């Protein structure tokens, strides 16, 4: 029974002792066995699950792409039927954008945030587990129809009326709609968790101008998600209603609007593009300086640029719709905004350049990935700048030029930093070092394969090759370019295989990693590799952006971070809450234990979605009842969490 004074105590300051770490371990460790594994709310466990699951989707989406790259390798190929091609390219887009690019970054952030912030967990661990389980369920739900042969086939952007019942009669689009709504719930609860964690769970001293850039990237992305996701969830709900309940939101024959879909979709879609690159840019901003042996140049500018990109990112969605016949005045506005959004990106590029230029770069595999990212980001950036210009975009849009652009953006700014981040944080995740030599091979195959595959797409686009065509005649001048693209994409795929191989090999046979193998400056490297379940035995106090470099950067002795000595929090599972701006200690938080309720809740919601997919109200009712039960169980007040407070016992329990 927890008494009120347990919250009001002032925790004492001390150093870790074997007794303390033993106690913390028993409090925080995930229970053994399969059930224990299912019930874990440990952010590290959840983060790794996110990473592994998202990576599996990357591989699946990649295989889909390689299949249709064979179809496109030369004119008039007949490997795939048009229907197969349409489902494959739709699944490829959906998989990569929704099931890989966002979740993989959630995975890294989930794992890293509490470690970077000097906290014991995310603010809402059960919500964190829920977010993962719904993501997994939504992913499987979205794939269920594809595996049965009627996958979504109207493109990931799913324009109406092509996606309406009149032109798409199967269950394909219903499953897509419901799966996306489900996935939206996962993203939303995850976003809330990141925001609350940022606001309250930074360790003492970590004022907002000391958090790593990754935190800024993820925070900005998730704040944007809170505003962007409702738009797309609404769009898919309205579409599902149009298709199944006879409403006419998008039905132009009954007063509905085809443009409404595009606006709702892209009001979400464009901010989402930034949401799936900003955290990755953050990982580079934090990882790159380690290998340049100096702090990042222009921390404040980069942090502000991150936020500015996102704010502007809400004002450019119409650049996906330049050819829809909008008035010239609004085209001018959105064109200018789409070009000007390049300014904050250039801030980041020059900050990275200056960091390398003024530093002493050491050529490790993560460094190679991070550096090549800068070049790919630039190429993807300038092609984006070109499509931002309306008259030019009227030619470029819906050609392979845009395919080249978006792959330079998404692979260049997401996959390359993620690969670098895997090499960089792998020792922390697993306690093993990855193979550097294999890493070089891995990097160069991916880099050469990627550019060989995707650069020629710029040219096939300038030669007029439209997107989403399942074949093309031989007189168009595109054959050789497409053959090169196909060869390059297979080489790139091979590079990704090398990465997987290196990971598996290093998990098994890699040399043991020390706590801080890269001599990096941030808090996650103060913990053992892998970190203990409670992350930090005592809560550290930080005094700068690079706590582990302070001595060598000549920070005066009195104002250095304290890692070894800190607040003792061991009256049960506890974390420290701090104030929002300055991170002054302010509350003791009782953290929930492992629980299966998030898993059950995710499954119950999937039952609802399945019922709606079958338009079977009985299944919906059962799922709804299960969902309500799970929520009730979740919210049932627990004494241990202080939700039903016992009166003060009078015995001081100050430890």
């Amino acid at each position, binding site marked *: 029974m927890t008494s009120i004074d347990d919250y009001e105590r002032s925790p004492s300051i001390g150093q870790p002792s074997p007794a303390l770490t033993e106690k913390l371990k028993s409090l925080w460790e995930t229970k053994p066995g399969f059930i224990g594994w299912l019930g874990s709310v440990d952010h590290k466990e959840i983060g790794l699950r996110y990473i592994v699951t998202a990576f599996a989707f990357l591989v699946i989406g990649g295989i889909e792409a390689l299949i249709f790259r064979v179809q496109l390798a030369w004119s008039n190929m007949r490997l795939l039927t048009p229907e197969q091609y*349409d489902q494959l390219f739709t699944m490829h887009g959906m998989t990569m954008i929704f099931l890989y690019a966002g979740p993989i970054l959630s995975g890294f952030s989930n794992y890293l945030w509490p470690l970077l912030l000097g906290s014991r967990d995310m603010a809402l661990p059960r919500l964190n587990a829920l977010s993962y389980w719904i993501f997994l369920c939504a992913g499987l739900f979205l794939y269920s129809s594809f595996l049965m042969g009627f996958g979504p086939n*109207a493109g990931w952007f799913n*324009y109406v*009326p*092509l996606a309406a019942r009149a*032109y798409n009669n199967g269950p394909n689009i219903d499953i897509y709609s419901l799966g996306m709504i489900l996935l939206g719930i996962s993203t939303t609860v995850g976003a809330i968790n990141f925001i609350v964690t940022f606001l309250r769970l930074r360790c003492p001293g970590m004022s907002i101008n000391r958090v790593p850039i990754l935190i800024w990237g993820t925070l900005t992305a998730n704040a944007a998600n809170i505003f962007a996701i409702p738009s797309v969830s609404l769009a898919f709900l309205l579409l599902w209603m149009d298709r199944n309940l006879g409403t006419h939101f998008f039905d*132009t024959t009954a007063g509905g*609007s*085809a443009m409404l879909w595009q606006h709702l979709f892209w009001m979400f879609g464009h901010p989402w593009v930034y949401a799936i690159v900003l955290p990755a840019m953050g990982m580079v901003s934090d990882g790159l300086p380690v*290998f*340049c042996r*100096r*702090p990042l*140049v*222009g921390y404040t500018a980069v942090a502000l640029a991150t936020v500015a990109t996102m704010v502007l990112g809400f004002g450019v969605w119409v650049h996906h719709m330049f*050819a829809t*016949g909008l008035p*010239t005045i609004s*085209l*001018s506005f959105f*064109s200018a905004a789409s070009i*000007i959004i*390049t*300014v904050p990106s250039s801030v980041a*590029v*020059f900050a990275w*350049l*200056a960091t*390398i230029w*003024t*530093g*002493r*770069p*050491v*050529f*490790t595999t993560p460094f190679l990935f991070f*550096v090549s990212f800068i*070049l790919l980001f630039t*190429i993807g950036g*300038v092609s984006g*700048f*070109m499509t931002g*210009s*309306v*008259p*030019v975009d009227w*030619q470029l*849009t*819906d050609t392979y030029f845009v395919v080249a652009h978006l792959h330079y953006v998404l692979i260049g700014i997401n996959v390359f930093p993620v690969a670098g981040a895997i090499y960089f944080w792998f020792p922390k995740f697993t306690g093993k*070092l990855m193979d550097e030599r294999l890493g070089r091979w891995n990097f160069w195959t991916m880099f050469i394969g990627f550019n060989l595959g995707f650069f020629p797409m710029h*040219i096939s686009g300038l*030669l*007029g090759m*439209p997107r*989403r065509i*399942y074949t093309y005649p031989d007189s*168009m*001048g595109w054959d050789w370019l497409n053959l090169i693209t196909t060869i390059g994409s297979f080489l790139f795929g091979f590079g990704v295989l090398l990465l997987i191989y290196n990971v598996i090999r290093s998990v098994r046979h890699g040399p043991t990693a020390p706590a801080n193998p890269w*001599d990096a400056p941030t808090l996650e490297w103060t913990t053992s590799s892998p970190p203990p379940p409670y992350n930090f035995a005592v809560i550290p106090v930080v005094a700068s952006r690079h706590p582990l470099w302070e001595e*060598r950067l000549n920070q005066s002795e009195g104002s250095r971070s304290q890692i070894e000595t800190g607040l003792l929090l061991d009256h049960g599972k506890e974390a420290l809450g701090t104030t929002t701006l300055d991170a002054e200690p302010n509350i003791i938080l009782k953290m929930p234990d492992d629980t299966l309720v998030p898993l059950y809740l995710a499954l119950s919601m999937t039952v609802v979605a399945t019922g709606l997919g079958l338009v079977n109200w009985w299944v919906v009712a059962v799922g709804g009842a299960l969902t309500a039960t799970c929520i009730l169980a979740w919210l049932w007040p627990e004494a241990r969490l202080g939700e039903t407070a016992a009166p003060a016992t009078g015995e001081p329990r100050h430890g």
Partner: protein
Amino acid sequence: MRAVQVAILSTVFLWSNARAAPLQYLTGAGDKATPVVFLTWGLIIISISVILIIGLLLAGAIWRRPGEDWTPGARTALKSHEGGLNWLWIGVGISTLVLLFSVVWTVKVLAEIQAPTPKPAVTIEITGRQWWWQVRYLSDDNARQFVTANEIHIPVGAPVRLKLVGGDVIHSFWVPQLAGKMDAIPGQINETWFEASAPGVYRGQCTEYCGLQHAHMSFLVVAQPASEFRRWWDRQLAPPAPPTGRAQAGQTGFQMRCGSCHTVRGTEAAGALGPDLSHLMQRATIAAGQLPNNGPVLAHWISDPQSMKPGALMPTPSLTETELANIHAYLKTLD
């Protein structure tokens, strides 16, 4: 010296190949396309310059002063100085100027080509359908209006006004040599214009994904001198020649089996679901630019369209050999 020669020759070779690509837009023909061609090249040059500059700076930064080889434990010392902010001021400053310049140029070109059609020589209503284009020539004189499909004739050197309609799903109308894209969206009419400065045949293509046969939804724009265009239009209005012999039986068969979807003006075939086939033999292609319009291909197409364009809305007709041959003979009279 040799290397320079090889470089020049291969550039010329690649460029001539690129120009031969029917849908390329690195050159243009007409007042709507030309200002955009300049802007496109301008932005390409800016973009390539940016990539080169950043690439060189990056290479310089990496190899200027590398640290020692990395082995865990043996570490390159930290750099403590806080410099480097000048990079941001200068780099971002120059970038912003270039971006602003590009915005101004963009808006200027936009104003130039977005003005309403200057004195259109003809107005054409184009409806995108799965997966072909219906083309209606509008005229104040009702008797001079007519409908055709997949081949648009225009007078050379004169602005042509286009009204774009989405007949079922969204399509996008694109003739890269003449103008950028404009969507054909159900429930709205998008107006645009283009002009061909030189006579010739320009290829066009649907560029908004519209379902199974999106790949095979192209069309031709034939720009011809005004007098020739006038003759073409007059001919479209002429009634079909009365068929004789086998073609006569073919006409009966056509009206029964094909007439509920297809129209041949001046006959009982008046369907509106498929392309209007009046004066079909005047067209260079069938199946929306996919196939050449010649005897054997046409015969194959009417007997088995699904094998040539899987998913097309034209069903495989259950016709006897004789019926097919008759209908084929009839179609060939539609000149």
